[in-house]
């Protein structure tokens, strides 16, 4: 059957990650009557990313449960899916995309949900066999091919990805070293008591955690990783190196089309870019988030953020009233620990501890003035749950009651 040289849809979504797929779903739930085309640059049917560093990596979640929807959804459901196709150019004046197979796509509205790529290591030896990243299913499968018990993994980056991978590889029986360049883990996103908790948690599980540790080079033997060399000169033996050092948003094609970009595609609170009929959502979008306290724009890399963007944009595209944005939140699973965080802590001027950070369940609140703006919850889901509404309201918190875990969080609000 001859492929059509040109396609068209009322809504064309580039990127079949969480933002793109949730947009398809949200449009359908609104009963959106227009045509929707979803373009994925991967051959696989759309899949969920969080399990790649968690259950899928440690073997507790099977490949066939990673799919975002079943295959019937893609053949019979509300959107047409193109797989394994990249967008090479956008012509915003004619409202057309060019695909890498030569086809053209005409759009009514374009939604750029292209996410990002794992930041690559800028050090010698980064191109050796045995160096991995953690962004795609292919990345996770590549790690799984070499992740055998007693092999030695060195993880560069003590953020959520690095720590989740550390936990998963420990459960597979590998020796694990985590190298964090900052003085503490999760330095950009949490306060010191939470960093200390995670360091202890990983050490209790047999991970060698090194802070103030900068990887300067990777050494290899016959083209395969053999060690990581630190700036201190120390050489750490390694059979595999996994880097979790951040995400670079996919914005080049948009920039080439004349769209305003700055560490992501710039969008307003309705997800409109600087190009007419072009929107951007998810990991790649730098947006005006009303819940940010210290900056005009933020670019948030999380599932709830992607879902929230999709929910709001779908309402707009479907002609319904868009809900007010929910407070950003995030979760991370490492070993048996439930970690959930609500709000954005940037701009806080005080930190309050609730419970005992030396124990296994506690929370840390971030206040701006008297108002709670963010909360980290370690094995304290009721605090996580109650904090969402309190943060949304800008509730003023009584520090003594907040610090006492016998007092429910919602009862720590000052009248």
């Amino acid at each position, binding site marked *: 059957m001859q492929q059509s040289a040109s396609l068209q849809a009322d809504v064309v979504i580039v990127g079949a990650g969480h933002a793109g797929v949730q947009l398809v779903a949200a449009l359908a*739930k609104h009963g959106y009557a227009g045509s929707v085309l979803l373009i994925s640059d991967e051959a696989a049917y759309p899949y969920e990313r969080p399990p790649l560093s968690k259950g899928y990596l440690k073997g507790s979640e099977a490949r066939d449960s990673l799919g975002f929807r079943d295959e*019937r959804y893609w053949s019979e459901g509300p959107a047409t899916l193109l797989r394994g196709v990249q967008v090479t150019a956008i012509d915003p004046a004619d409202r057309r995309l060019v695909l890498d197979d030569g086809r053209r796509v005409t759009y009514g509205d374009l939604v750029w949900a292209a996410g990002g790529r794992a930041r690559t290591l800028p050090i010698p030896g980064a191109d050796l066999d045995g160096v991995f990243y953690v962004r795609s299913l292919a990345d996770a499968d590549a790690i799984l091919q070499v992740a055998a018990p007693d092999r030695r993994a060195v993880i560069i980056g003590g953020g959520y990805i690095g720590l989740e991978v550390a936990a998963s590889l420990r459960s597979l029986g590998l020796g694990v070293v985590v190298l964090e360049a900052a003085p503490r883990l999760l330095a950009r996103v949490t306060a010191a008591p939470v960093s200390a908790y995670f360091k202890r948690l990983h050490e209790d599980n047999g991970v060698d955690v090194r802070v103030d540790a900068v990887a300067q080079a990777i050494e290899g033997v016959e083209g395969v990783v053999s060690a990581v060399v630190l700036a201190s000169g120390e050489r750490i033996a390694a059979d595999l190196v996994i880097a979790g050092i951040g995400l670079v948003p996919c914005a080049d094609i948009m920039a080439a089309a004349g769209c305003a970009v700055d560490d992501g595609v710039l969008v307003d609170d309705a997800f409109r870019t600087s190009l007419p009929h072009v929107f951007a959502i998810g990991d790649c979008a730098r947006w005006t988030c009303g819940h940010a306290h210290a900056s005009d724009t933020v670019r948030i890399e999380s*599932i709830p953020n992607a*879902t929230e963007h999709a929910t709001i944009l779908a309402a707009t595209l479907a002609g319904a009233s868009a809900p007010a944005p929910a407070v950003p939140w995030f979760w991370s699973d490492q070993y048996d620990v439930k970690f959930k965080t609500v709000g954005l802590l940037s701009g806080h001027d005080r930190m309050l501890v609730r419970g005992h950070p030396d124990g296994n369940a506690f929370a840390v609140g971030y206040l701006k003035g008297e108002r709670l703006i963010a909360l980290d919850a370690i094995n304290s889901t009721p605090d996580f*749950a109650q904090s969402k509404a309190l943060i949304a309201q800008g509730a003023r918190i009584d520090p003594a009651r907040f610090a006492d875990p016998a007092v429910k969080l919602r009862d720590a609000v000052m009248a």
Partner: protein
Amino acid sequence: MVQINIIDSTGKSHALSGNAGQSVMELAVNHDIPGIVGECGGDLSCGTCHVYVEAPWEATTGEASSDETDMLEVVDHLRPSSRLCCQLILSDALDGLTVSTPRDDA
């Protein structure tokens, strides 16, 4: 196959057919049932698959785990019949299960 019904907040009843072992959430999202998002994929981390279990099915769906009960604090319009439907796993005993989704205040 296991048949279930999901009544959405407009009162419309959606009859769905799933396999034993699937969760109600998975079945719902694969059919774009309004009110069920399942954004964490069934990890008991988001609370976006909130349903009410219609009588007399609570006897068969059983009790929520303590993890689920904790997460139910996130939802709006909590009732005694509230469940997170990623934890409701289809089986022959649940053939005919009816759940409803909360009203949408957004």
